[in-house]
């Protein structure tokens, strides 16, 4: 077992379009989480998960040069920092996205356990709420 989550996904869309979707505030806010975001190194961003007692995610943009985007990821109520990395690659017929979320091993003992407990308690419902929110938007549009 490792402490890195990695995902690879192909999109049948040009690389610039995918890049815009993951770096532009309005677009992030539409498909991901309502955001205050600028793809500039050093920018302190916020993702505001919608719904009841969901804690926002904040962090700092560590790198934002086409086509690599890296930011720290901190769930506000637990000062635990993990790292999210997006890398895009132009491939035949579209774009390959490589996503990596890492860093849980930086955390120790009880803090880590607190974090897991809070995930279990709050985050699942936040995500459910968010998914519904996005569905509604799609249907309304």
């Amino acid at each position: 077992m490792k402490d890195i989550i990695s995902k690879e996904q192909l999109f049948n869309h040009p690389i610039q379009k995918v890049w815009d979707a993951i770096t532009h505030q309005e677009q992030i806010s539409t498909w991901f989480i309502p955001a205050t975001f600028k793809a500039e190194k050093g920018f302190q961003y916020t993702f505001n998960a919608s719904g009841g007692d969901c804690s926002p995610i904040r962090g700092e943009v560590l790198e934002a040069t086409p086509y690599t985007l890296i930011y720290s990821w901190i769930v506000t109520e637990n000062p635990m920092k993990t790292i999210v990395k997006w890398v895009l690659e132009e491939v035949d017929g579209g774009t390959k996205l490589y996503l990596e979320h890492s860093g849980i091993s930086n955390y120790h003992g009880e803090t880590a356990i607190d974090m897991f407990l809070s995930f279990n308690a709050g985050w699942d419902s936040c995500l459910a709420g968010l998914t519904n929110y996005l569905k509604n938007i799609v249907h309304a549009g």
Partner: protein
Amino acid sequence: MQDNITKILKAISDPTRRELFHALVIAATALPITQVSAQFNITRQGITKHLKTLENAGLITITTSGRERFCKAEAQPLQEVKNWLHFYEKFWDTKLDQLGDFLDQKE
């Protein structure tokens, strides 16, 4: 606390220790250290050192019975790491699906 994430991850970052741990998980019972080391092509000392690391991480327990020492897998600490991974695995799968839908709709 014994079962902290760093220790656990460090313990399972080594391929030999992963194999050792895996062998014990599969055995699902306490095994004599002599029997465990017979399965691995490294020195008895090497095995003992690896088992100690696993023990420190709370991943195995070592008990002495008579002249033999037994080791047994304790999978519970892994649950912590698993919870985190499981949560974000699901999270990112959902999100990347949403990204795909978003891109498809945006022409």
